[in-house]
């Protein structure tokens, strides 16, 4: 029980604070319902960008000063790196000035905060190209020479053709290739980096991204950071929490109301309006700024919408523009409540844990839903897990087998203002929500892509890869073959066996003592192999059996352009027939 004085203070505070907060909240809800915005967001984002750039220049100048005091020779390396960064910032600026923004906007309702006057050039904060440049390039440690691929198309490891004098030592030479590949993978690989938050080029005034940059630079920056901190936690957070609660309540109430109506066109329209409003309110609660592109491809009739998955917010982001049916595991607690609420207003697919394992049952449910023209398009994330939005990982083939029209959607977040990626092994749900609500904003670009259907003879896996490629290309993401589930589980031995087989094939080219290698698996893939998206492999070498390999093929050094000529081979070895097959046979 608070003391009388404290109670009095609280009452006074709430009286004074309440009207402004209430007013703002009401304005926001009105705007959400009508689907309009005040344009505050643009100014906010612009201001933030300027502040970040100023911060970045502060870091640079201080770093330069620091280095001048210490070693001189290191300057050369690091300055070239800085020039790269400066160039990138300049490129961004010029791109921004020339581009214009369009599309749907939703603003976060909060009071203005002016640091510099004027300058309200509306900007599209990122085009696909500049995003890629900003986050991809500067972070590589090595230039990779070798790569282990999961598919069968190219020959792996190095393409160098070595003058092999003895067959045995060819193996040791190859093992060195494997070593190099292994060490390169330890230093830099395609997969591990996708499961942690994206690295930023410049600091965005959040502690969570500050380790890459110097801890303490100067007082000005720290003051700015503290001001930002207070702003985020004291102003933005309470407002956003209020909005969030209101949004949830609205969802529960509106779905209950819509649920009263019998199934039909009226219910569908009402559901449409209710859902859109509800999600718009919720999206303001994390200050989501979403740009939609190519709205003509938006799915309106039944079908399956697929998108790349980055965060739990994805559903909400996409739902601010279009209404979808959802599919997922039914949970208990608050999430379960929401699921039931949603189900009242329109039909979604929720299955419980035991059913989740049964692939065919889920597939059946999907088929039923999709074939009903009255039902909404289902939203599915085929990656199965959250990836950090720099790449698209393997799509599970389940949704591509059903035979419905696929509406691909590419989503790209701009993580400078807040990274929506949820690393579920590191952050709990509560931490994640807190982090979302204390970011500056969540900015997302959504591209609708033309609908695709499976070809006559096309395998589900190939279709899935085709869709994945299109999404990756549009969103400026890297297209990877690896399975997103590797985040949690080990590499299955099947993949290792596949690499072994590939090497064995390679070995067979120049080891004539070996009999033809038996095909390890035929053309009937079992479930597990399909999970990995691996098709059965055709024979790689051109020969059907190894007896066909000419025993006495001798290749002179001049033909090997890649490798410099080596000294004369050991005399003892020369007497043996050298069988060295040039890659060109293929």
């Amino acid at each position, binding site marked *: 029980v608070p003391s009388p004085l404290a109670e009095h203070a609280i009452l006074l505070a709430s009286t004074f604070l309440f009207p402004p907060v209430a007013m703002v909240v009401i304005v926001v809800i009105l705007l959400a319902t009508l689907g309009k915005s005040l344009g505050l967001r643009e100014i906010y984002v612009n201001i933030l960008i300027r502040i970040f750039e100023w911060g970045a220049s502060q870091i640079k100048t201080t770093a330069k000063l620091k280095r001048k005091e210490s070693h001189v020779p*290191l300057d050369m*390396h*690091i300055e070239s*790196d800085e020039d790269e960064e400066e160039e990138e910032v300049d490129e961004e600026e010029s791109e921004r000035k020339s581009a214009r923004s369009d599309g749907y906007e939703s603003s976060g309702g909060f009071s203005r905060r002016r640091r510099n006057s004027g300058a309200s050039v509306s900007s599209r904060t990122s085009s696909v190209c500049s995003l890629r440049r900003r986050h991809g390039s500067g972070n590589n*440690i*090595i*230039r990779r*020479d070798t*790569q282990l691929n*999961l598919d069968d198309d190219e020959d792996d490891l*190095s393409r*160098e053709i070595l003058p092999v004098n*003895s*067959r*045995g*030592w060819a*193996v*040791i030479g190859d*093992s*060195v*290739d*494997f*070593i*190099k590949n*292994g*060490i390169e*993978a*330890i*230093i830099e*690989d*395609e*997969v*591990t980096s996708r499961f942690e938050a994206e*690295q930023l080029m410049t600091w965005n005034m959040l502690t*969570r991204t*500050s*380790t*890459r940059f110097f801890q303490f630079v100067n007082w000005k920056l720290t003051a700015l950071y503290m001001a930002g901190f207070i702003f985020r936690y004291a102003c933005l957070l309470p407002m956003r929490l209020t909005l969030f609660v209101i949004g949830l309540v609205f969802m529960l109430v509106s779905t209950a109301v819509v649920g009263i109506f019998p199934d039909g066109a009226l219910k569908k329209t009402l559901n449409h309006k209710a859902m859109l409003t509800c999600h718009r309110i919720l999206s303001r609660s994390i200050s989501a700024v979403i740009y939609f592109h190519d709205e003509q491809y938006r799915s309106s009739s039944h079908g399956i919408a697929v998108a790349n998955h980055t965060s739990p917010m994805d559903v909400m982001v996409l739902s601010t523009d279009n209404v979808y049916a959802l599919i997922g595991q039914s949970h208990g607690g608050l999430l379960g409540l929401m699921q039931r609420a949603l189900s009242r207003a329109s039909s979604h697919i929720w299955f419980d844990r035991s059913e989740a394992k049964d692939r065919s049952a889920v597939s059946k449910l999907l088929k039923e839903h999709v074939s009903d023209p009255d039902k909404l398009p289902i939203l599915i994330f085929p990656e199965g897990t959250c990836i950090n939005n720099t790449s698209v990982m393997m799509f599970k083939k389940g949704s591509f087998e059903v035979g419905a029209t696929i509406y691909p959607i590419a989503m790209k977040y701009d993580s400078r203002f807040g990274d929506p990626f949820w690393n579920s*092994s590191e952050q709990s749900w509560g931490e994640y929500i807190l982090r979302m609500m204390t970011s500056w904003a969540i900015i997302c670009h959504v591209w609708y892509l033309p609908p695709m259907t499976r070809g006559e003879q096309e395998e589900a896996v190939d279709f899935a890869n085709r869709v994945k490629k299109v999404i990756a290309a549009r969103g400026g993401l890297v297209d990877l073959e*690896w399975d997103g589930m590797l985040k949690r589980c*080990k*590499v299955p031995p099947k*993949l*290792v*066996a596949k*690499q*072994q*087989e590939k090497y*064995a094939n390679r*070995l067979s080219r120049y080891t004539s*003592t*070996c009999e033809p*290698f*038996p095909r*390890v698996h035929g053309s009937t893939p079992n479930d597990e192999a399909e999970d990995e998206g691996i098709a059965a492999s055709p024979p790689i070498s051109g020969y059907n059996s190894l007896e066909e390999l000419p025993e006495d093929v001798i290749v002179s050094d001049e033909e090997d352009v890649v*490798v410099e000529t*080596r*000294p004369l081979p*050991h005399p*003892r070895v020369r007497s043996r027939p050298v069988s060295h097959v040039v890659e060109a046979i293929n």
Partner: protein
Amino acid sequence: MGNNSSLMLRDEEIDVITNETEFNRNQIVRLYSRFLSLDKKGQGFLEREDLMNVPELAVNPLGDRIVDAFFTLSGDELESEKRLNFRQFVRVLAFFQPIDRTKKNSLNGRKDKLKFAFIMYDLNKNGCITREEFKVILNSMVGANITTDQLDKIADRTIEEADVDHDGRISFQEFCKAMEKTDIEEKMSIRFLN
């Protein structure tokens, strides 16, 4: 990860590592960032498991052996093989820097690169590669795709070719001699970006 670590790299440490290896400051900072992302549990050192979590390494048929060699090279006592701190991590990676004949660095000479490969083959670390050990490696690389007979043949031939003193095993000198023809510098060098 990498966002809330309290294991910041101090300047003095960076300087020490720069002197030991030929990496410059930038590269060390990036390698440190990589070290942190591999060290998922935030322990400050790497274990075998941490390295094997890299999918591309796990798929590599010699992945196990590479990790083993990595740990062996980093320390010579048996206990310190289990853990790898950042300094040891960078030291081993320094073996793979391209050879620059103008610099006097002792960590990435030809012999040192060969040492890595040798350690990988020498399973029981007694300084020699026997026929059996070679068979194990070969088996890892081709798996079930080769019959025991073929395996034996290749192993036999390999050992015979390099075994100068005919003691049935390959010592480090014999290994180096046999690898004279291979372009080890190129094969075991990784291009680090500046």
